[in-house]
């Protein structure tokens, strides 16, 4: 007569044995990944062709000014007159236009324009 504390082993059925094997394999794989620190694999190193040989660059001499290439502006913006330049246009317009009356001509009598 078996006692209450005895473990009774029953032989599993065939379908259950397959599932147990799968679980065991998965547990084994997980253990391996955990031991490797999460690294699934080593990086792949591929050997490639060496870079093409570049011409030797000129070395900068000590205290020598840096060489500058001439800069050519292909689309220069229109030149704008500085606002500080004296503007003679109002005087020119006043001299060109017809005076209004005798009094305006009188003011030109002693002008030296």
């Amino acid at each position: 007569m078996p006692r209450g504390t005895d473990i009774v082993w029953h032989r599993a059925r065939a379908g259950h044995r397959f599932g147990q094997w799968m679980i065991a394999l998965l547990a084994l794989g997980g253990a391996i990944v955990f031991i490797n620190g999460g690294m699934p694999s080593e990086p792949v190193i591929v050997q490639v062709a060496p870079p093409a040989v570049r011409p030797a660059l000129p070395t900068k001499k000590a205290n020598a000014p840096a060489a500058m290439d001439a800069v050519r502006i292909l689309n220069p913006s229109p030149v704008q007159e500085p606002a500080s330049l004296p503007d003679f246009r109002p005087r020119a317009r006043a001299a060109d236009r017809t005076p209004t009356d005798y009094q305006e001509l009188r003011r030109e009598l002693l002008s030296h324009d």
Partner: protein
Amino acid sequence: MILSLAVVACSAVSASSRPPESLDWAEFHNSRFGLHLQYPSAVFSAQRSSEAGDGDLFTTSDNSAKLLVGAFENSEHHSPATYQRFILQESYPGLRVDYSPIGQTWSVLSGTRGDTMVYEKVMFSCGGRVINSFAIVYPIAERAFYDPIVEVVEDSFSPGIKSCGQHASRD
């Protein structure tokens, strides 16, 4: 450029070396007010005219001398004396007056300012409602040439009475 300066200089010399009687004189007539005078066309050429038709400015080729002729309504009711004081203050400040006679209907103001000689004659017309004037300024250094010209211009100067009946309204 040099050639043009030489031409101007030669013409000035030739004009200044001629007596006034030998110069070519032209008639000036103001169509609005009717004032009239003669001026030497070889010396002065018309430079500018006012839109109102009340003034004309003549200058020499080198712009050293100018002749202003004009007329206008006496809206300020000036007398010959008050108008002479007015132009002395407004137009010729600092003028050293050496000749300033005043008549009933006319006045003359003459003097120097710097190196410039000034001569202006004013004549009132239409009972004082219209002021007619001519003024001439020129270098003091050329008085020998211009003073005789001023005399001829003054003798030929006459005020207009054309617009007396219509208050000088423009045509």
